[in-house]
């Protein structure tokens, strides 16, 4: 017989609340219970019944467990809105926590922990203390979780009252469920606090592994998740742990299996024996495959995780590709994930089978799935060279079906295949051109236009084909316009006949005059100028050989992959994002403690000094006491050379090329002329004189590399240069030697520079003001930025020990930090080499939780030392720069 609670949802129209109030205060127990049920029903559908608080609480003192539970439920929901009245319930709670019935004791503690009212929390401590030592394991396991609740409300209280110790004692409890809950609570408290609270030693490890055999499935998940943080001391220990965890792979609960997989993968990193690793991989495959027969939602979670696992250990499922074949009735999200894994597992051995599948999918109903299937064929072609031809023939077959979106998707991937295998499959272009008029999506159109432009010489009617697009040029999306522009230029360069010449006029006109899109306009101007000045150069630029592409789409960066693998089964592994990116409550405190191990003392002032930076940047310090280096400045008789903290990040930014939003290599000092110098005085403002210049360092000497270009109609001579006072005291160390410049010629020169000549007072900055004059024109003033790396000397390398010492000895106020969002570093090694080439020396690299931390040192003349710490994570590189002045 099932319940009939639905009757409680229907109430009479007239004055519901007063009626309930009356019923709640009746003397009949049954009626009271019904009334409470009605209140709960009203609460469920979202009515506000908080005004009945006192009346409901009055029903609390009852022997009836069911009624008690309902009242407690009401309290959890409304105590926060009625904190003063909630205190009325405290007495009953405390009394209940001493009830002879363990169910009631546990219920009282459980509920009190859910009521987040400060006054109640205070009363919670004593009952909780008692319950943690209760005779009944059911009460203890409830109390263990309650400590985590209390910690969430008031962390200090937990520490002051010694709950953490009691909780740690429970790890040795004889009841496995108590152990599991205590572990869960400790892990959570650790996650939320700065101090190390719960560290898994080899002793706790063995205790927990024993408990694993006996506790419930959920308890096993808690324990496995906690243990996956444990780092085995050596390969032998790792093997022992793994051996005790592998039986969990046979558990029917998918969460247990995934947590076990996580733990095994973590320990496998330590294991050196290839036999053991191979054996483990063999053991993990079947349970992972079995997850695919669970509910579709669980399958989805499993597939997202398998995607990560095969990226790290492709061998695990190398032979299981068939299990990822899509079933007709799989939900779309499962199909999409399966497809992704099929691409990852595709190899020369199984590609024929895989292609048959993809082809089948490409004729299904769901458009997104069909598109992805077509794209998958293209990605396999790019990945597997030997199978490329077969992939292409499948794509051509699909194009013949003439389903619009299939054709468009196929053309997009064929463009990539052309790039991957140049001069191999161009014979199919004719087939592609047949479907030209069916294209209506920007990406497909752009791809087709790219193909026409790229192979213009092989397509007889390339000009006609392109012309058909030109009519609608102004209406096309930007992506297509850009491609049309480039393709037309290519066509013109390859077939410089009359037709293309007219076309190019039309396109350039359209792209320069008629558009508001700066990208398009700029590109058009560049082409225009290239074509009008030097068509051969234009050929070199536009028709240059392109680098071969590879299929790296959907491959994760190794260190991100590491992190995600440590988070198997969690949201992070499903999103393929590190937890910090989506968890709102960011716990930075935990990282700080780890940092201290390396550079103690420096951390404490970190937040403070960064705040200082912000101040300094907002309003330049006016009084000396505001400048962090004021202390160092006063005893020095010479004008100060110390850039204040606020300046450093900017310089570091320039140094590392941050302004370009990529960590690009610093210009090689030995070849100052090779990369183009930044234009400081454009010809338009200089009456035809264009000046490009940059500071460079060479053999410990600083030069100002300048390029003069005379675009005016008259010869220019008698060049002179002057530098304004600046923070580094940069000045010319010799006269500027530039010959007479005839119209249309240019001259480059290296001007030797000296430091500490004309120091500026006032707030330091990286600004360098330059004046240049000649005999024919007025004086030109322009600004340059000082890149600090040119000052760094070659003796800037420090020993690790002395680095550490110096780091520690620095006053906190010397430290500044700055975040550079949106920066990506490609290839750590290469970047380090480049930095070393500019005398920025790499000291050490450490890894903690989510980031790599790099330490650098550099030295400027007169013994100014820079210590630099770079937190480099994928989403948020943070540069902390510490500066020291070693002068007296």
């Amino acid at each position, binding site marked *: 017989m099932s*319940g009939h*609670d639905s009757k409680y949802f229907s109430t009479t129209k007239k004055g519901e609340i007063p009626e309930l109030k009356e019923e709640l205060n009746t003397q009949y127990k049954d009626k009271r219970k019904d009334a409470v049920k009605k209140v709960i029903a009203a609460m469920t559908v979202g009515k506000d019944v908080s005004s009945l608080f006192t009346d409901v609480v009055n029903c609390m003192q009852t022997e009836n467990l069911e009624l008690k539970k309902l009242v407690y439920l009401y309290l959890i929901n409304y105590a926060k809105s009625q904190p003063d009245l909630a205190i009325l319930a405290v007495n009953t709670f405390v009394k209940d926590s001493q009830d002879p019935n363990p169910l009631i004791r546990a219920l009282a503690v459980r509920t009190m922990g859910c009521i987040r009212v400060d006054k109640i929390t205070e009363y919670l401590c004593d009952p909780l203390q008692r319950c943690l030592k209760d005779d009944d394991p059911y009460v203890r396991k409830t109390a263990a979780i309650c400590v985590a609740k209390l910690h969430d409300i008031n962390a200090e209280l937990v520490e002051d009252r010694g709950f953490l110790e009691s909780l740690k004692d429970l790890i040795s409890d004889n009841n496995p469920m108590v152990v599991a809950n205590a572990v869960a609570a400790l892990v959570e408290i650790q996650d939320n606090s700065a101090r190390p609270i719960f560290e898994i030693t080899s002793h706790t490890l063995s205790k927990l592994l024993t408990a694993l055999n*006996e506790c419930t499935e959920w308890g096993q998940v808690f324990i496995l998740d906690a243990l996956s943080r444990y780092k085995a001391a050596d390969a032998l220990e790792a093997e022992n742990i793994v051996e005790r965890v592998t039986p969990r792979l046979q558990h029917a609960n998918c969460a247990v299996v995934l947590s076990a997989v996580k733990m095994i993968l973590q320990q496998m990193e330590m294991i050196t024996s290839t036999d053991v690793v191979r054996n483990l991989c063999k053991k993990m495959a079947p349970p992972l495959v079995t997850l695919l027969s669970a509910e579709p939602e669980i399958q989805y979670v499993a597939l997202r995780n398998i995607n990560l696992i095969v990226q790290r250990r492709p061998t695990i499922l190398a032979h299981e590709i068939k*299990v990822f074949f899509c079933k007709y009735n799989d939900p779309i999200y499962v199909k999409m994930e399966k497809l992704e894994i099929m691409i990852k597992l595709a190899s020369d051995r199984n590609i024929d089978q895989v292609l048959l599948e993809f082809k089948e999918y490409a*004729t299904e109903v769901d458009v997104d799935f069909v598109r992805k299937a077509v794209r998958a064929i293209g990605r396999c072609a790019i990945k597997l060279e030997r199978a490329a031809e077969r992939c292409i023939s499948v794509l051509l077959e699909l194009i013949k079906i003439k389903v619009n979106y299939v054709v468009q998707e196929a053309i997009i991937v064929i463009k990539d295949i052309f790039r991957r295998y140049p001069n191999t499959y161009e014979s199919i272009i004719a087939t592609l051109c047949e479907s030209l008029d069916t294209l209506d999506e920007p990406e497909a159109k752009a791809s087709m236009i790219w193909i026409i432009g790229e192979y213009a010489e092989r397509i007889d009617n390339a000009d006609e084909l392109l012309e058909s697009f030109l009519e609608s040029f102004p209406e096309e999306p930007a992506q297509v316009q850009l491609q049309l522009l480039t393709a037309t230029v290519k066509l013109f360069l390859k077939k410089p006949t009359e037709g293309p010449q007219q076309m190019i006029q039309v396109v350039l006109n359209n792209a320069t005059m008629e558009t508001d899109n700066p990208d398009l306009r700029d590109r058009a101007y560049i082409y225009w100028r290239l074509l009008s000045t030097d068509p051969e150069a234009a050929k070199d630029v536009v028709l240059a050989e392109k680098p071969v592409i590879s299929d790296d789409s959907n491959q994760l960066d190794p260190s991100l992959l590491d992190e995600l693998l440590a988070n198997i089964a969690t949201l992070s592994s499903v999103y393929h994002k590190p937890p910090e990116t989506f968890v709102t409550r960011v716990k930075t405190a935990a990282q700080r403690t780890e940092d201290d191990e390396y550079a103690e003392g420096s951390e404490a002032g970190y937040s403070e000094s960064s705040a200082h930076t912000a101040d300094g940047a907002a309003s330049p310090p006016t009084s000396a006491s505001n400048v962090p280096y004021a202390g160092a400045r006063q005893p020095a008789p010479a004008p100060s050379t110390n850039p204040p903290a606020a300046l450093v990040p900017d310089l570091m930014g320039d140094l590392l090329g941050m302004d370009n939003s990529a960590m690009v290599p610093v210009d090689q000092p030995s070849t100052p002329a090779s990369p183009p110098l930044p234009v400081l005085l454009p010809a338009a403002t200089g009456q035809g004189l264009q000046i490009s210049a940059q500071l460079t360092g060479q053999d410990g000497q600083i030069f100002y590399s300048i390029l003069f270009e005379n675009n005016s109609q008259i010869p220019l001579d008698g060049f002179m240069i002057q530098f304004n006072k600046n923070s580094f005291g940069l000045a010319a160390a010799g006269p500027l030697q530039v010959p007479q410049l005839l119209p249309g010629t240019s001259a480059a020169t290296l001007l030797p520079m000296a430091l500490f000549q004309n120091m500026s007072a006032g707030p330091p900055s990286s600004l360098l003001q330059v004046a240049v004059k000649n005999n024919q024109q007025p004086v030109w003033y322009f600004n340059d930025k000082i890149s600090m790396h040119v000052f760094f000397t070659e003796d800037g390398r420090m020993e690790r020990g002395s680095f550490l010492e110096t780091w520690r000895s620095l006053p906190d106020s010397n430290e500044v930090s700055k975040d550079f969002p949106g920066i990506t570093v490609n290839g750590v090694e290469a970047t380090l080499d480049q930095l070393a080439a500019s005398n920025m020396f790499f000291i050490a690299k450490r890894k903690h939780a989510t980031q790599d931390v790099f330490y650098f040192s550099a030295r400027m003349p007169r013994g100014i030392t820079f210590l630099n710490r770079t937190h480099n994570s994928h989403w948020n590189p943070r540069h902390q720069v510490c500066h020291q002045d070693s002068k007296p």
Partner: protein
Amino acid sequence: MPVAASAVYFLNLRGDVLINRLYRDDVGGNMVDAFRTHIMQTKELGTCPVRQIGGCSFFYMRISNVYIVIVVSSNANVACAFKFVVEAVALFKSYFGGAFDEDAIRNNFVLIYELLDEIMDFGYPQNLSPEILKLYITQEGVRSPFSSKPTDKPVPNATLQVTGAVGWRREGLVYKKNEVFLDIVESVNLLMSSKGNVLRCDVTGKVLMKCFLSGMPDLKLGLNDKIGLEKESQLKSRPAKSGKTIELDDVTFHQCVNLTRFNSEKTVSFVPPDGEFELMKYRITEGVNLPFRVLPTIKELGRTRMEVNVKVKSVFGAKMFALGVVIKIPVPKQTAKTSFQVSSGRAKYNAAIDCIVWKIRKFPGQTEPTMSAEVELISTMTEKKSWTRPPIQMEFQVPMFTASGLRVRFLKVWEKSGYNTVEWVRYITKAGSYEIRC
């Protein structure tokens, strides 16, 4: 963090909250509105079961006409969360006596609140075994075999059992007649190409048990699987008996099975829960005996006519028979008229699913009935895209047949009182997703 949930919502298809429980403070009470506006009322519904909206993540599942939504704001264990939902629904079903839907929730909301309080604490799943919970959470909705009428007094040692090492069985059970029923239920999943090549084929099997045993019995199950047999012959140092051995790709067990012992000795030993439960699941991909072969020929004769011929061959023993055989043969949407001839059973055109549905109630082994149909189509100009030809799907049950060939060799019951037990074993093979492309 092993946390699975900050809040659980049960919604009906319109998005009304049927019942909800907030376990943690880190998600607001109105998060369900976000779910409604950003997922339920958009096309996103059904595209992905894990979604992030603002600072919160939502995991949801639909079960009959109810959406169960879990909200978290931390890096929660998703696998744990979904498994929790699945288990919780199984628990509710066992309390309500079968159905889980909107009405069942409304009718049992007090009970559900009580259970939600018990099975999860602060977002951490606790004991979800129906056996144990029924000891002390007893409501009118319960059909408890143990307590004839609901009482408010809890069983004295209930709490010990919730947390005990055998958290799935209560002590002191007594049956007059000790019986064990064991069912091996196999689902055959097949994907066959139009040319008759097997693309994918596997069997997922379940061993279901119903135990009516007194006391705390220790059970041991022996199957004719390869690893188990090899280990056994090793231990007894005698050659393995000839006969068919089955290689199991993977096995998973109910939490009552001692996994460590399975790992070392390869024996399935356990203290069973009382009543019905799923002892183990297994998967087999090698050496599957397909019970049916389907040979379709579909000819499109011009734009408006189609000819469909389907032959179905039963390849199990002549003395056996299959029950409830249904073969769904897809036809295009614009089908106007169909006519068929069948050598056995009955066929019907079902326009709702665009299929010809051919049913054969009793299908003996070693026979091959055929169906031939003519389909007339409405000629349409708009239908530019060719027909995608979904696969033929098949449903069936074959009693006393296992597609894997798996057999129970022994089931030993040991209890300290030394009573005798009666064991019953049944086998049945069903169609899982049995698809033949055409």
